[in-house]
C-alpha cells in the first residue's frame, strides 16, 4: 500500500511523537502507573481507539508488521479502519496472523496465540482509572495510587462475594502490577488476565479521551485481585467452538436466527482460522456442499 502524501510518517507530527514517546518511557519505568499525556485530536472519534492509535503511531516504524484486532476479530469495522489508517499514513505491512505481527493493536482481547519477546501489544483503553466507579474524583484516585491505598477496591470485591457469592466482574478485572500499582487491564475478558502475567511481550496502554498512557514491561508480575478463600478464576462459555472445535479458547455467542439458535465461535478469528486450516473441524462448521451452495 502506498503511503499517503501530505502527512508525516504515521500521521502525528514529530513534536507530538516525542511527547508521547517520553510518556511511554516513563510508563515502562513505572509499571502500571498512569502517565498523563497531551492526547491529540485524531481523525476518528474518542472511543474508537484514539489512545491506542497515538501510542501505535509513536512506536511504529517502516519495518513493523501491524495487526489490529477488535474483540479478537481482524475483520470488524474498527480493526479494518485502523489497519488501513496505518497502511496509508505509514505504508507499513499489515497482517491478520498473530505470529507474523511485530506490533498488535487490540481492542478488548489478547490473542490466544502466546506473544513473543519481539512483539509489542498496544491496548485501546476507554477508562484507565480502575477506581473510577468507586471514587469519582481524579485528584483523589491519583492520591490513592500515590499511597498505594487500594482498600476501596478490596471492599468492592468483598461486597460482591457477600452479595453474589463470587466477584461479579467479568471484564476489565482489576490487577495489581509489580505488587505496586492497581491497574485497569482495559475491558479484556477476565479470561485473558492470566496472559498478562509474565508476558514476554511489552504491553502498552493508551487512553485517548482520558489522556493517559501506561505500560507493563515484559516478564512483570500482573496479579488479578482476589482473596485467599476466593481465588481468582477465569470463566468461559461451557462449549466447544462451533467452527474449529476448540475447547480452550474464549468464545463469542452468535445469535443465528429468531428461533433461539445459538452458535459459539472463537472470538480470536485468526486462532480459529489457523486451527481450521490445520484440519480441526467444529460441530457446526459448514460442510463442503454448504460452502459450494454459497
Amino acid at each position, binding site marked *: 500500500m502506498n503511503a499517503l502524501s501530505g502527512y508525516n510518517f504515521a500521521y502525528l507530527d514529530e513534536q507530538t511523537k516525542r511527547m508521547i514517546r517520553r510518556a511511554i518511557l516513563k510508563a515502562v519505568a*513505572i509499571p502500571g502507573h498512569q502517565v498523563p499525556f497531551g492526547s491529540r485530536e485524531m481523525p476518528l472519534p474518542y472511543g474508537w481507539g484514539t489512545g491506542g492509535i497515538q501510542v501505535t503511531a509513536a*512506536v511504529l516504524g517502516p519495518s513493523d508488521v501491524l495487526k489490529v484486532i477488535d474483540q479478537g476479530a481482524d475483520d470488524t469495522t474498527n480493526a479494518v479502519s485502523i489497519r488501513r489508517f496505518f497502511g496509508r499514513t505509514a505504508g507499513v505491512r499489515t497482517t491478520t496472523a498473530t505470529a507474523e505481527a511485530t506490533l498488535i493493536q487490540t481492542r478488548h482481547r489478547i490473542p490466544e496465540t502466546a506473544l513473543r519477546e519481539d512483539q509489542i501489544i498496544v491496548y485501546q483503553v476507554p477508562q484507565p482509572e480502575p477506581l473510577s466507579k468507586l471514587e469519582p474524583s481524579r485528584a483523589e484516585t491519583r492520591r490513592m495510587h500515590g499511597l498505594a491505598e487500594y482498600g476501596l477496591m478490596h471492599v468492592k470485591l468483598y461486597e460482591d462475594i457477600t452479595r453474589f457469592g463470587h466477584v461479579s466482574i467479568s471484564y476489565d478485572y482489576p490487577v495489581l502490577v*509489580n505488587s505496586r500499582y492497581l491497574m485497569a487491564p482495559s475491558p479484556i475478558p477476565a479470561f485473558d488476565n492470566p496472559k498478562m502475567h509474565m508476558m514476554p511481550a511489552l504491553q502498552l496502554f493508551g487512553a485517548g479521551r482520558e489522556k493517559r498512557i501506561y505500560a507493563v514491561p515484559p*516478564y512483570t508480575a500482573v496479579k488479578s485481585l482476589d482473596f485467599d478463600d476466593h481465588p481468582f478464576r477465569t470463566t468461559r462459555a461451557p462449549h466447544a467452538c462451533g467452527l474449529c472445535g476448540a475447547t480452550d479458547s474464549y468464545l463469542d455467542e452468535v445469535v443465528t436466527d429468531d428461533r433461539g439458535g445459538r452458535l459459539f465461535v472463537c472470538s480470536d478469528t485468526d486462532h480459529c482460522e489457523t486451527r481450521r486450516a490445520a484440519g480441526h473441524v467444529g460441530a457446526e462448521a459448514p460442510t463442503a456442499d454448504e460452502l459450494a451452495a454459497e
Partner: protein
Amino acid sequence: MSIDLPGFADPVLGAQSCFRAVLDAMARPGSRHAAGAGLTPPAPLDPATAAVLLTLVDVETPLWFDPGCAAAQDWIAFHCGAATVPDIGAAAFVLALELPDLAHLNAGSDDGPEESATLILQVRGFGAGTALHLAGPGLRAPATLAVDGLPAGFAAAWADNHALFPRGVDLILCAGTTIAALPRSVRIAEG
C-alpha cells in the same frame, strides 16, 4: 562551530528507530541496543548519546548538561531547541559525562512519579568495567551488564534511588553506538 554538524539524515525515521532502541532498552533493563550509527555529532558526544538527545529532548523539556559538554551546546540548542537550566534539580533531562549525585535530580512526587528526570549518561563502554547484576520488571531471569565508566559505589547510589520507588530517576547509558537503560524499577547488585 558544532552547529554545522548535521542531525539525523532522516529526522523522522532516525528518531523512530532510536526510540525503539531506547524503548526496548528500558523495557529490558541491561539489554544493549544499537543507536546513532551514521551520526557525526560534535565532541564530546558519542553518536548514541546524540541520537538519544535528538529523539527525546526538545523545547518542552528543560535540559541540564555537564560543563564538559559545552562544546556541543550550540549543536544541542540548534537540533533539539531545548532550554538549558543551570539547576540540575529542575531538569527533565540531565546530560552527563560523569555520574552526578542522583539525589540532586528531580525524583518526581508520589502522585506524579513520571515528572522525574531522565539521566542520559555517556560512559566509556560496555562489556568491561563494573559488573552490574540486575533484577526486576522486564527481566525473566537476573541479568548482568558490565559498564566501563561508572564510579565505585554506583550500586549504593542506585539502591537509594530504587528505594524511592515509584519515585526515582531513570538512567540511559550511552557509549559509542550502543545504549542500555536502567529504569528506577530495577534492582542492582555490584560485583
